[in-house]
């Protein structure tokens, strides 16, 4: 899953936000020559579009509303990541919601990439309610297109902030299915297509996959700017580890990845603005540096 690629040789960035790192890592996981169905915009969309520009030219990006293989006119207006002219530009096909759902159901949409608010060891997603459903806490936006993608795409890449309150033993509400209780055949018993399920989780600190037998989250690689102890401390449960115990260290973003992300996608600096600090390479090591108020990272 963690492969080598052109990023190995490319000039590395020395200052970036963690969420930028996360998007670049997700981009490197993109498999060339496959279809990617992405709900909404943000990190999942950016990761696929960066990959298509740099590493996976034969990837087919499919938007939730049925835009197939566009050459989107970047950047987009805020919120307008779907059903709008710029993201739909120069597509091979404009379909409908049910039309693109059909393509997924019969198996033509290989990968999904999804954000989640909360995750459990079996990759179940919560985007509906944090707290006690209907009683206390907060209602969020619901599954949207994520339930479909999580159910029917062959492989799903998840993206989440690496925070202790988000890695929970049991999500407050399963909005979109992972491996449910993790037992063999649990998804099939729920009526979901065979041979589907979460394939990877990319946080701002680490990359996970799911152990084949147990369907349990397994740590595969960590960011160069955090320690294994830090990664585990921000989880309420212990992940599995590879059989050889080897957890790899990820490469930092390249200058080119960040240039594309900053100039064509996250142009309003949402990722960098919402970050509390920057990751900076100084004196031969990575450190977290408090952000200067109002200062944006340069587009390189």
């Amino acid at each position, binding site marked *: 899953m963690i492969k080598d690629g052109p990023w190995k040789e490319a000039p590395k960035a020395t200052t970036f936000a963690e969420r930028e790192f996360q998007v670049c890592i997700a981009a490197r996981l993109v498999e060339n020559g496959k279809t990617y169905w992405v709900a909404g915009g943000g990190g999942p969309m950016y990761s696929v579009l960066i990959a298509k520009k740099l590493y996976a030219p034969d990837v087919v990006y499919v*938007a*939730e*509303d*049925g*835009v197939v293989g566009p050459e989107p*006119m970047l950047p987009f*207006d*805020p*919120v*307008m990541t*779907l*059903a*709008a*002219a*710029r993201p*739909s*530009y120069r597509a091979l096909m*404009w*379909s*409908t*919601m*049910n039309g693109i*759902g059909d393509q997924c*159901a019969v198996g033509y949409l290989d990968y999904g990439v999804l954000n989640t608010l909360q995750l459990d060891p079996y990759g179940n997603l919560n985007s*509906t*309610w944090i707290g006690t*459903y*209907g*009683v*206390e*806490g*907060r*209602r*969020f*936006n*619901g*599954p*949207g*297109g*994520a*339930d*479909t993608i*999580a*159910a*029917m795409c062959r492989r799903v890449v998840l993206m989440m902030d690496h925070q202790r309150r988000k890695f929970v033993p049991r999500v407050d*509400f*399963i*909005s*979109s*299915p992972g491996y*449910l209780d993790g037992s063999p055949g*649990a*998804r*099939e*018993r*729920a*009526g*979901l*297509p065979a041979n589907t399920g979460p394939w990877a989780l990319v946080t701002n600190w680490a990359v996970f996959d799911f152990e084949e037998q147990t369907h349990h989250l397994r740590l595969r690689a960590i960011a160069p700017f955090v320690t294994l102890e830090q990664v585990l401390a921000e989880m309420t449960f212990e992940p599995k580890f590879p059989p050889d115990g080897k957890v790899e260290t990820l490469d930092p973003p390249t200058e080119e990845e960040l240039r594309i992300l900053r100039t064509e996608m996250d142009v309003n600096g949402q990722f960098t603005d919402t970050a509390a600090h920057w990751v900076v390479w100084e004196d031969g090591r990575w450190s977290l540096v408090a952000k200067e108020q109002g200062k944006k990272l340069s587009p390189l």
Partner: protein
Amino acid sequence: MADNLERVPTVAEKTLRILEEGQGEYSLPDPDVFREWTARKDRAMRPKLMTAQEAVARFVADGDYIVWETNYFQRGPSALIREIIRQRKTRLWAGGKFTWVIVALLVEAGCCDRADMGFFVGGPGVTRAVVEKRLKVYEYSNLVMAARLRAGAMGLSFISVRSLGGTDGFKYSGAKIIEDPYTGKPTVIVPALYPDVALIHVHQADQYGNARIFGTTITDVESALASRKVIISAEEIINTEEIRHKPGLTKIPYYLVDAVVHQPFGAYPGECPGMYASDTEHVAEVLGAIYNDKVKEYLDKWVYSVASEEQMLVERVGLNKLKEMQRRATMVATEGYRS
């Protein structure tokens, strides 16, 4: 007698087990009841042009189940939604798929007490309404809601889907898991949806309701077929002669339609692809109002304090902004949006 008759070795039992049932409320999906309604709709081509005020007054009743296509930001029937709020409709049941702020606006305005969830912003107002039991939410997803509408559009009572199973949403939905009648495997089915009202904003329509939409569509066609009352708002009214010139462009035939509202900028603040871009400031304002619990102020400014959409566009938005929105559309992508 049967000559090419063969016994098929698939289903041996003569019953199918229902393995699981969601507990969410829904209207009984009986196609024959829906057909009684469509029997009474007029098939003759009669002009249906009217104002948004008139269309909403005549065709949206308190307690109706409403669906709308796309959302407040992208070719949605924003003008019709604001008119619903302005007329202070109550007890609406919202089909909240593929939408952003509309459910929150309806809830805060006191128009809506039930919602089927696909996707909508769940800020503090919606949370409060749920906790205080002023709003019931039933849980589906965008595509499952689209499948329910498709089943309605097909005149069926249910359809099977390959998702929703295993989620907690399933428990608060009208879905069931049954043994598949052919494969024997567990299969999720959902009840067809037959809304009372569909609100659909289109690029072009004639005065009878023959309607064209360009770009992707969500479930515009399915909603028109499955809903008792269909209100079309259109950027442009075109001649029927033009419709007959390119019949392949017609997405909705006139006899499904009850009202045609000529509503330029009817998707405002949203984009109408190929015609105008969105008002990004307004988008930020309404999202901010929801997240910061200022929806009432937002509605006062943009809905209640103006008598009509036309007044809102002239006095609150201003012609310069509208021209700029058109200019930005022209700058990006008008290709493909006329065929």
